[in-house]
Each structure stands twice: as C-alpha cells, then as structure tokens.
C-alpha cells in the first residue's frame, strides 16, 4: 500500500480474529487493530479529522497555536499532524500519566503544561478551558465536544468494520471523549441498527475521584446515551488480567485500556453463549502496550500490577 504522506495512511486498520479467546465458532471475537495507525493509537483518526475540519471552516490558519487537554494519546496524534502543517501545539496533561507519553509529546514537538494529578482528566479540561479564555487567539480543538472527533469514526472506523465483517452483532469500545462510540454508534444506528454498542469505561482509584463534587462532575459534550446499549465500568485488575490474556493467547500486545475493552467484550461473549445466540463481537485495540511499560502493569503478579496502577491514569 502506497501513500503520499504519513497522514494519508491514517485508518484502514486490520480486523483480526481471536481464535483462542473466542468461546466457539458461533460466538467470535474480532480485534480492530488501531495501534497500526501512524503514532500507534486510534487517536490519529480524531486528531486528523479535527484539524481538517478546523482548516475547512477557517478557524485554523497557518501559524496558529493549537491548545488541547489530553491524557496523552490525542496530544501525540495532534502533534504529529500539527508539526507537518506548521502549527504550534500546547497540551495540558495530568501529571499522573506515564512518562512515555510525556516524552513522545515532546519528541513530536508539543509543549506540555501539567495539570494536578488529583481530578485526572477533568482537571486538565478545566485548566485548558481557562488557558483558552486567557489566550483567545489560541485554537482549542476540544476533543470532548468536537463533532469532527466522532465523525472520524462515522466515516472511517465503522464502515471499515462493516465492510470487513458484515455479520457483526456487537461493537465494544472505550469510553473517554466518547468520540469512538458516538461515531461508530451513529453509523450502525443508520446502517445496521441491530448492532449492539457497548462501552467500557476505566474505573480509576480514589485519587481521581476523591475531590470530585457530585455537582461538578464531567460528561463530555459529545456524549449521547441513546447511541449506546450498555456501559461497563472496568477496574485496573480486570484490565490488566485481560491485557495479559490477549498477549498470552493471541499474541496481541495492547495498552491497558484495551484490557478494559476486552473485559466488556468477553462479558458480551459469555452472555451470547448462555443464551445460545450467534455473535460476532468487534472490539477496539486502542493502542499498543509500549507507552505503558513504565506503569508496571506488564510485570510481576496481577496483585502487584494493580497496586502500581493505583493513582495513575492508566487509560
């Protein structure tokens, strides 16, 4: 496959079967390998889509500074695209994210502003919104509320899956900005409405939730609950256990959030087996494990890994 440039190669990722983790010939699991994108994560799709949309509507012009709250992956994707197109990029990132993500952002040319660990991504969003107010000439693409984020999956991720696997019955994705699930969900509601859309959301430790007041929580502006059918909260223990099963049984080395997504996918598979229904369950491998090696999730016992992840934004 030949492309004119790196950004032209975003998307069209492989869909691979999981012969060993699938419970039977009638209930099959399929992994959409989004780590095969240029910077190694699904976020390349959203980043490119948001930049192209902002260029098209005139809000992003040559020499602009882009500002974005990110736990890392979207920032890395934006940095890759921005540098090639001549934009400056400032990322607001929680300080309790892995060191690899910080190093990669810097390497791709982004400037990083740290937000306090307590509060996690909520806090990064708050800090970024304040900076945007103080610097009105900066362009905040704002992945949590930018329709172009979801559109990337409506136009790319979802039709690719349907083309490769017309018999799909379930789609399982991670819930962060909600962009993947909203775009894929909307596509299937329009084109194959019997496909069930399942969300896996990471459940962090006390530090992330500790200071949250129940009146000032955060729901991404993109989120539309009518586009999903069920939503699972997955803690670090199950995520780590599954991410290890994925490498042990299928040879796929994925990031920790993918473990959470696989956990929800396997729950759907178990339900289908129990009710005697056929199922083709597609789940997202959001990124590879490389950026998370320093978290300690990939060595020692599950107990040790779980303990090390406490207080980290592991997904």
């Amino acid at each position, binding site marked *: 496959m030949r492309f004119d440039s790196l950004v032209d190669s975003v998307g069209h990722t492989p869909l691979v079967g999981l012969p060993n983790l699938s419970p039977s010939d009638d209930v099959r699991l399929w992994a959409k390998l989004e780590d095969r994108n240029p910077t190694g994560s699904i976020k390349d799709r959203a980043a490119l889509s948001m930049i192209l949309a902002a260029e098209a509507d005139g809000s992003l012009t040559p020499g602009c500074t882009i500002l974005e709250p990110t736990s890392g992956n979207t920032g890395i994707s934006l940095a890759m695209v921005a540098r090639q197109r001549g934009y400056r990029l400032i990322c607001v990132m929680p300080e309790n994210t892995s060191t690899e993500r910080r190093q990669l952002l810097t390497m791709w040319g982004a400037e990083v502003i740290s937000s306090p660990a307590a509060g996690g*991504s909520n806090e990064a969003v708050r800090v970024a919104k304040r900076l945007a107010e103080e610097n009105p000439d900066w362009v905040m693409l704002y992945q949590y509320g930018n329709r172009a984020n979801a559109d990337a999956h409506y136009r790319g991720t979802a039709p690719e899956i349907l083309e490769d696997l017309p018999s799909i019955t379930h789609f399982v994705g*991670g*819930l962060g*900005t909600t962009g993947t699930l909203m775009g894929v969900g909307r596509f299937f509601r329009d084109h194959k409405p019997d496909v069930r859309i399942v969300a896996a959301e990471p*459940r962090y430790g006390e530090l992330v939730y500790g200071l949250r007041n*129940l*009146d000032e929580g955060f*729901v991404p502006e993109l989120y539309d609950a009518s586009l999903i059918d069920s939503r699972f909260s997955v803690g670090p223990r199950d995520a780590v256990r599954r991410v290890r099963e994925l490498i042990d049984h299928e040879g796929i080395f994925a990031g920790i959030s993918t473990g959470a997504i696989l956990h929800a996918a396997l729950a759907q598979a178990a339900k289908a087996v129990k009710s005697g229904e056929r199922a083709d369950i597609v789940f997202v491998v959001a990124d590879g494990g490389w950026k998370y090696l320093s978290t300690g999730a990939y060595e020692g016992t599950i107990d040790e890994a779980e303990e090390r992840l406490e207080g980290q934004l592991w*997904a």
Partner: protein
Amino acid sequence: MTAATPLPIQSPKPKVKPDMAVEVRIPTILRPHTGGERAVQADGATLSAVIDDLEKNHEGIKERLLENGQLRRFVNVYVNDEDVRFTGGLDTEISDGDTVVILPAVAGGAA
C-alpha cells in the same frame, strides 16, 4: 454410585426469599454520610429500594444521589459493574450478593 454420595455438610438454602443484601461502595465525597465507611450493606430488590434503605441508616445520602426522583446528572451507579442507566435505572433489579458502586462522573479514557 448414588449410595456412596455423602450427605451434604451444609444445609440447603432456605426456599423463602431472603432480604437482598448488597454491598454499596461509597465515593469519598459521600463518606461523611456513612461515618467514613468506604462500603456499607443495604437491602432491597431494586436499586430504588436499596437507596431508600441506605437513607434509613445514612440520613441525607438519598438527596445527594437523586433529584426529582432521578439519578443526578453527574452521579453514576453501577450494579456488578454495569451502568444502571442502561439496565432500567432506579428500577434495576438487585440480587443477593450484588455489588453497587456509586461514582461521580469524570473525564476518562486514553483521551
């Protein structure tokens, strides 16, 4: 072979449906209502009944969770890790031994 089957050591479960005892995990922000406890026990056949039972022992907690008879916007409740907004909301059925987790809505994921 049946002759060799040993008698069960434990008596069989009673046929009468017992109260549904569940563990409810309480977020930091609500622990003033539970005397600092991270998890408390409650009874009820539905989530609504469980919340009413919580309120009996931990006054004021219901008002923090509900508004006009609905879950507050930034309150997420999970029964066995599944978001109740997709399983019937406050009418979600509760079974003995289920785990109920209450969490504030936060930004998450590998964003």
